[in-house]
């Protein structure tokens, strides 16, 4: 009887099973709209957080990122080359085994300007993974081209002609039957549609434009650029298109670098796009040229940011 009384009175004294921290906030859904936090420098990791790629002399910008089948990430960057005249760019590739790790091998050239229409530069890669290959859309000259890779993104074979003319800074997504290609022209961010991934039909009007009527405190008051798009299928089985883009509140003063911030938009049909509510970005300046990979309820973003006097590519992630 005494034993029974002890068993009953022990919990009365607050001596129950070991205490817990407050739960209920893990694995909550999200659509890649953040909150993103730039990776914080950690002396215990080999990475140079938040940087994915920087160079003391050359500009490193406009990344692309995909989930790596073996874990980690496949990354591409747009990089100046010491062998080329200033301003000419190429697309370089590296595999990142983990978010806070070093690349398996140093960044290596994956795509260079070779075709006449590409002029002296290729860059701004946007890549979709299909079952048997990767498909890249990239900026070259004043147009957008397409290339394919069957070796995981190391080497690429290009189409001879661009898939979209007078457009740049592509973003690409594929829902299994339809392609949406976002691009930048002189009016803002537009989208083009395709069923074969080769022949694209642009919508007549841009879908995201600078909010010039909303006052200079709006992060995309002056300019929108660098769209990145994705097709997300959520827990209910319904899918929709999402877009990350860079916005500029004001033009930089002479000699200053532009300070972009990153915004977010979504669309059910790929034609009608809505910005996330509010006038604030999802990633504050300075951050531009977003590329995002969404895996379940988590997302990783590669983005442009100033590293001293040069642009580098940084990484941010949701909790």
């Amino acid at each position, binding site marked *: 009887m005494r034993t029974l009384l002890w068993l009953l009175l022990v919990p009365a004294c607050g001596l129950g099973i070991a205490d817990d921290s407050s739960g209920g906030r893990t*694995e909550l859904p999200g659509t890649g709209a953040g909150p993103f936090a730039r990776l914080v420098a950690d002396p215990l990791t080999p990475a140079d957080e938040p940087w994915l790629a920087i160079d003391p002399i050359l500009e490193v910008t406009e990344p692309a990122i995909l989930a790596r089948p073996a874990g980690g990430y496949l990354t591409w960057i747009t990089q100046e080359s010491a062998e080329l005249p200033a301003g000419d760019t190429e697309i370089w590739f590296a595999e990142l085994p983990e978010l806070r790790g070093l690349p398996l091998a140093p960044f290596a050239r994956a795509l260079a300007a070779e075709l006449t229409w590409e002029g002296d530069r290729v860059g701004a890669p946007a890549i979709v993974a299909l079952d048997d290959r990767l498909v890249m859309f990239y900026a070259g000259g004043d147009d957008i081209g397409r290339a394919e890779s069957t070796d995981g993104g190391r080497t690429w074979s290009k189409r001879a002609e661009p898939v979209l003319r007078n457009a740049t800074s592509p973003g690409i997504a594929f829902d299994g039957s339809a392609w949406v290609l976002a691009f930048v022209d002189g009016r803002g961010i537009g989208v083009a549609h395709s069923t074969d991934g080769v022949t694209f039909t642009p919508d007549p009007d841009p879908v995201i434009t600078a909010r010039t009527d909303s006052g200079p405190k709006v992060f995309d008051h002056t300019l929108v650029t660098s769209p990145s798009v994705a097709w997300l299928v959520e827990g209910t089985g319904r899918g929709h298109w*999402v877009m990350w883009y860079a916005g500029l509140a004001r033009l930089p003063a002479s000699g200053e670098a532009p300070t972009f911030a990153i915004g977010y938009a979504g669309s059910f049909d790929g034609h009608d796009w809505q910005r996330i509510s509010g006038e604030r970005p999802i990633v504050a300046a300075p951050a531009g040229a977003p590329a995002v990979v969404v895996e379940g309820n988590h997302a990783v973003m590669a983005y442009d940011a100033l590293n001293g006097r040069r642009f580098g590519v940084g990484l941010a992630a949701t909790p």
Partner: protein
Amino acid sequence: MKRAPLALLLLAGTAHANPADLFGFGARAQAMGGAQVAGANDTSASYYNPALLARSSDIRVDIGYQLAVPVLTVDGHDTNVDVSRGLALGLAVPGKLLGAHLAVGAGIFLPDQHITRTRTLSSSAPRFALYDNRPQRLLLSANIAVTLPHGISAGAGIAYMSSTQGTVALDGIVGFPDPASSRLDLAIDVDLKTIRYPQVGLAWDVRRWLTLGVGYRGGFKLVLDQTFDVTGDIGTPGIDPLVSNGYLHLRTRAQDLFQPAQLTVGASARMTPHWTVAFDLAWHRWSVFENPAAHIDFELDIGMFNELVDIPPQEPLPAPHFHDIAVPRLGVEYTRGHHHWRGGYVYEPSPAPAQRGATNFIDNDKHTLSLGAGLEKLGLGGIVLRPISFDVAVAATWMPARDHEKLVAADAIGDYRSAGFVLAASAMTRWRF
């Protein structure tokens, strides 16, 4: 001066009511699906219907332990909602006053993790709204019941909760440009204020085998009210300040906890010497539930620096659009000698609509099946002459999947599917003197 009464951060308090609402109070009641407004025969009447306390002629002490383990998922991922566990204690003491038989009783649920928990989340942050803070709560009620003519008894009581009001004040000089030169006196004033809400009940023995009951439990809401004040000069100590008598005033008010008013009618029928059936139908007034997001009043006057501060405009809080619900409860008890076997079923529809807008107060319909057993032992220990009861119960709540599809494609949370399972158990001893 900048003044901005704004929902700056849109922080939302969560969770509602108390653990007994969710998981029952006492092993017998839990085993019978909580259908106890006419059927409680122990100190759980303090929670279900205080009028039934008057039925006992013995001093009663019930003590036990309750545990509930939720596995609540969003898109198939467990959100790790906290386990609820703690001591359940009941007391009933009968007596006579002016010839009338009466009893006083008390019921306590004492969690062994959190006496109370206050958590505010951003307005759009997904959370299982009825399972977040709700199970992490001390429950305390005191009641009195009296027997009236014609087989009627009546009871009433008060339940207690606490709300938090606090002020943090800093006064002095804020160092600028060197913050390390700040000299600030700190004062903290926090009150845990008592909130009382009523509960009343009636019971009527229509026949020897049939009892009808009705109970009402008042609704309430707890408000978390916090103020943060900084007053003083800005500058370097010893020289004229850049800003004199600057101040920052920040006040947050959040609905930390909400319990809907509940009206329950029920019947308990002893169909045969062995079988007892109880049925309750409860109405829960969720339609007055307000968005628990925090309102933040923000005032700032820092003189020449005011223009450097960008305060976002106030955004209206979206209405949660909860609705009233009716909850049927069915319980059966089979008695053979000193042994009891019990079962129950509860269907609780969700008061929350599918979350298609800016809020994410997740909830699902709930089906609960429960089982239990009891044993009465005589003459244990030689001191307690009345039978002592040992009761156990287990209840499984299934929350079928529910889709929440957003109306806006640019929603930061997006579509999701919520589902869940809650396993609750309790063990209790009931002593009569």
